[in-house]
């Protein structure tokens, strides 16, 4: 069953064509990895899905509704949660309060229910020691953890992860994967943008490769990385 369907999506920034008629869809419970060179438009894809930027043409439908005219907050209420590649914490608020925003406004919980829920997410994402710190005082690795925790506090149907493993040590990366595996909800769909392919392939079941405004490959990790077009892109093999 399809959760997200993207059809003919075109996005330009001035003269720069980031997406040219991009189409793909994502099933309920599916885990999709997105890779591609720097500047391929991966983060822009998340901005388009979450309503941070508007497309020039094309459509995005989510869980049966057309998102064309929806504001970012409406998309959040429909069940889309995301992280930002460059963390955007509510800097003057505590880590816990950052999660509370997602749980109350995003998820619609009462303050009371939200507190209990955020306690769980804080424990699940192993942020307990930092819960009372102002988010603005965290180091990058913790900020990325907070990005994940805040998105999880929404209990989203679709979770968009933008390079949350970048710059992590092997141990931190293992911990991150175990957090992702601990997400209880089996119906959650995930799209994960990541340059750290080793981490990605341990989690996702399908990979989409973006380059030059299009999806140049889409399929199981093994088939995608065997694809000559992808090998050219990644290894510089000249077989064209």
């Amino acid at each position, binding site marked *: 069953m399809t959760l997200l369907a993207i059809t003919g999506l075109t996005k330009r920034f001035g003269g720069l064509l980031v997406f040219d008629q991009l189409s793909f869809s994502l099933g309920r419970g599916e885990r999709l990895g997105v890779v591609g060179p720097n500047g391929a438009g991966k983060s822009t894809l998340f901005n388009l899905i*979450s*309503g*941070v930027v508007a497309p020039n043409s094309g459509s995005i439908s989510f869980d049966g509704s057309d998102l064309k005219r929806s*504001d*970012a*907050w409406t998309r*959040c*209420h429909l069940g889309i949660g*995301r992280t*930002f590649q460059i963390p*955007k*914490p*509510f*800097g*003057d*608020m*505590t880590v816990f*309060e950052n999660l*509370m*925003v*997602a749980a*109350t*406004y*995003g*998820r*619609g919980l009462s*303050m009371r229910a939200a507190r209990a829920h955020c306690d769980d997410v804080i424990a699940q994402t192993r942020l307990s020691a930092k819960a009372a710190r*102002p988010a*603005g005082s965290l180091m990058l690795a913790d900020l990325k953890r907070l990005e994940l925790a*805040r998105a999880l506090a*929404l209990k989203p149907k679709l979770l968009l992860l933008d390079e949350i493993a970048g710059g992590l040590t092997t141990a931190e990366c293992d911990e991150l994967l175990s957090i992702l595996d601990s997400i209880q909800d089996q119906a959650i769909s995930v799209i994960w943008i990541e340059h750290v392919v080793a981490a990605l392939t341990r989690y996702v079941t399908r990979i989409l490769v973006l380059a030059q405004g299009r999806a140049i490959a889409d399929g199981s990790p093994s088939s995608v990385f065997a694809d000559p077009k992808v090998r050219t892109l990644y290894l510089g093999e000249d077989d064209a």
Partner: protein
Amino acid sequence: MMSASDRLSHVLRTSIIAVAIAALALVVMWPMVGSLNSLRYLAELFVLIGLAQMWNLLSGYAGMATVGQHLFVGVGAYSFYGLAVLAGWPAPLALLCTPVLGAMSALPAFAMIVRLRTAYFAIGTWVLAESVKIIAAKLPGFGHGLGASLPVPVATAFGSSSATRLTAIFYLTFITATGLTLGMAVLMRSRIGLALRALRDQESAAHVFGINSRRLRPMIFAGVGAALALLGALTTLQRLRISPDTSFSLLDYTVNIIFIVIIGGIGSTAGPVIGAVIFIVLRESLANLGPIYLIILGLVAIAMMLFEPKGVVGLIDRLARLSLTIPFRRPILSSLSNRKRT
């Protein structure tokens, strides 16, 4: 087990509550013991506290710095006059209706300036206020540029002798200021407080996490308009007259209020209260210097912005490490420059 610092802050908190209760009892009994003049000053103080709470809500929390809040104070004064004098409604009913008119005038005002950003938004509120003031001077029935006095039946509606009248105004302004101060404290601990702070810190992330600023901002703006209008009506009862210059006074209801909030501490609930007390004390002790007190006040505010952007509350926090404020506030200037719309 409590740590030493927990115990200290527990003791401090308990003593603050005790002092607050004692102060409340004193205020309630004051009209029986205090002079009429002291009632006048205290009522003025309460109005200033209310005005400062509202400016702090918009500028310190909601990211909508204004320099035009005298608009809604004036609207409140003129609405009260219109309802109580021109329409002949009972004065208490007219008073209770002024917040409705304040909120109703705030919504179109907001619609006119919502597209403007930061400093332009602030200037937009000022331009609007000055325009409405000019319109007020042209309104028939309101005494044009000179204004009008409250006729005797309205002026005496809350008490026929000046002692009873001042006592009534004293309690009305006290209830309003306390209500607005406690209301602010509750609001900032509620989900709306979370939303306002999230919007102030990171607007686009706030949107992505479900906060509809297009609904929240006008709601807050209308609420502030309502409270300011009530304060304007109360001021009219104190002064017994309306006029474009006094009812829409930029100095009295906006400039002085900004000083109060900056000196007391922006982005905290206690700041406006402390700032208003300091303002009255400074003004009375410097009164014989004439307008120079304004310059001194300005210098104090500038010094405060430079050395302690969180005002006296920030100083107290620093000295006593006692949190009267939700942790970590951003000073006004950075909250202005960080405000973006998408």
